[in-house]
């Protein structure tokens, strides 16, 4: 199962076109790893863990692992939706603002006397509506999503600040419900893993997933074959937005307060960076949810490890920037090599 999920097309190595015999064992091993790009990012994450454990003895401790999970969870949930959008050839820059808006909707619905779970659903529905709005502006008005969601991003910041009047509020509710919804020690990472599995299954094993790849891989060809590419794009905008709302809601329960300025562009860029480092092509057609999860994990470990070692945030940003650039260059090269049949 794990293996079929990892490789987007569930291709056993033996079924690949025969590797030219002149290649030695090592290059062949190398090309297998390069074909499974999730594997290469996993190797990076493991190397990071080993390095930081040697450099700082308290890296692998219960507390620190929880800290890493806190870094990872919300971003990975957002990244899962963002990957689907990137694969179908679009991007959503407004997910960080949906992240802040959804828990406020939940809060106000709850304040109006409705149960908390109704509030959560209302928050997620509102997120989905934002996604639909992004989709309509992008698809019907043919505005590149880079621009349309940039607009939405400012719009939502304003809306959230207006309805909250700029002040944070205390997350309502208590007890087991809150524990499950993100307050419990490992509840958020469990959510993140569940989301990863569900979205990866959608991508790998359903029509929706294949049509998402087709839309991003060959927009014209896909619509020629009768794929409703506009519906695919709108649906993925709604999915990305709803997952961002879910991430924001879980985070509100975890930190027990709802901040109108939570999330923002920084969590959005972390999610996109994780997706790209995990092998998603910004040009569409390529990418996996598992890869994005591992990408976010690798970035989070780096962030956490540097904090433990006392490396300055300035240096961390330099390294993150270089990592993203290298990942993107590799991405493009790998795509060219794969298409030229050299891998």
């Amino acid at each position, binding site marked *: 199962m794990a293996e079929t999920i990892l490789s987007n097309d569930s291709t056993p190595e033996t079924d*690949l076109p025969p590797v030219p015999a002149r290649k030695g064992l090592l290059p062949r091993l190398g090309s297998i790893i390069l074909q499974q790009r999730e594997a290469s990012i996993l190797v990076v994450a493991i190397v990071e863990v080993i390095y930081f454990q040697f450099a700082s003895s308290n890296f692998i401790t219960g507390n620190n692992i929880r800290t890493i999970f806190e870094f990872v969870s919300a971003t990975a949930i957002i990244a899962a939706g963002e990957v689907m959008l990137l694969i179908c050839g679009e991007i959503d820059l407004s997910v960080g603002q949906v992240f802040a808006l959804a828990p406020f909707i939940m809060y106000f619905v709850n304040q109006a006397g409705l149960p908390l779970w109704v509030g959560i659903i209302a928050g997620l529905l509102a997120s989905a509506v934002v996604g639909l709005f992004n989709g309509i502006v992008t698809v019907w008005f043919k505005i590149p999503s880079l621009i349309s969601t940039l607009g939405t991003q400012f719009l939502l910041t304003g809306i959230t600040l207006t309805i909250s009047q700029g002040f944070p509020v205390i997350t309502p509710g208590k007890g087991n419900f809150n524990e499950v919804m993100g307050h419990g020690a490992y509840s958020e990472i469990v959510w993140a893993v569940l989301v990863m599995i569900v979205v990866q299954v959608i991508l790998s094993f359903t029509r929706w997933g294949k049509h998402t790849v087709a839309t991003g891989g060959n927009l014209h060809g896909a619509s020629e074959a009768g794929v409703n590419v506009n519906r695919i794009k709108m649906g993925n905008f709604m999915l990305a937005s709803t997952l961002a709302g879910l991430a924001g809601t879980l985070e509100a329960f975890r930190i027990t307060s709802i901040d109108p300025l939570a999330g923002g562009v920084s969590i959005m860029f972390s999610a996109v960076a994780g997706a790209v480092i995990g092998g998603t092509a910004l040009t569409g057609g390529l990418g996996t949810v598992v890869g994005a999860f591992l990408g976010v994990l690798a970035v989070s470990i780096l962030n956490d490890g540097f904090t433990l070692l006392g490396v300055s945030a300035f240096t961390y940003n330099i390294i993150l920037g270089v990592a993203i650039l290298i990942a993107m260059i590799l991405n493009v090269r790998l795509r060219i090599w794969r*298409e030229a*049949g050299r891998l």
Partner: protein
Amino acid sequence: MTEITSPVERPDAIRTEHIVKRYGAVMALHDVSIRLRKGEVLGLVGDNGAGKSTLIKILTGFVQPNSGEIYVNGEEVKLRSVSHARSLGIETVYQDLALVSELSVYHNMFLNREIRYSPLPFLNNRKMREQARNHLKRMGVSIPSADVEVAKLSGGQRQAIAIARAVYTDAKILLLDEPLAAMGAKEGALILDLIRNLKAMGEVSMIMIAHNYSQVLEICDRVNLLQHGTIAFDKPAAETSLDELNELVMREYREAATKTPTKS
């Protein structure tokens, strides 16, 4: 069965009568009547700008003619759209442009016709892979595996898969727009074999646009030459020759040269 062995006696798959198409002041087609008989391969040749692609666009429902009639299986139709033409079994294969490089061969073959474990939403990859494999085998298309991504295949293999997919979707009339363009001899032979196999199966009729006259003569039953928006020449391939086709095209050049001697 014996009386339809001669291609001349076969019923028409598609026929056009006096098709006219103007783009503003430009007369793209001024009187085009063609007949494609069932199971036949019709080679459509002609210089760039002769109107080949306009004719294909009309037959595929993408462009509507100003006047003239189109008959599909003997019935007059107005081809309203690409999907309308497709519902009548007319399918165009534009090189390999319709394939998704990132998807496997069988996912491409089943794009938008995926088989699922209904009522579950999950794809029945095993069944699709098996059917795609059998279909490709039946058509004589050889690829390393139905599992490979299309990106990993050669241009000829992709073209073969694009054609195979069109046939698999119950297309009865295939319009092949330069299926051999930009292909090496080996790759081209692959496609010619595929077209030959399809012809032998007799389920589809094909119109093939090509520039290479020797390939046209090799594979087609009839040759139509389109010049200045009309069919200048219509003969069975067996009754014409490379020399005749070249001569016809060269004569046109000479005429054009005498009319506008300064044209570069």
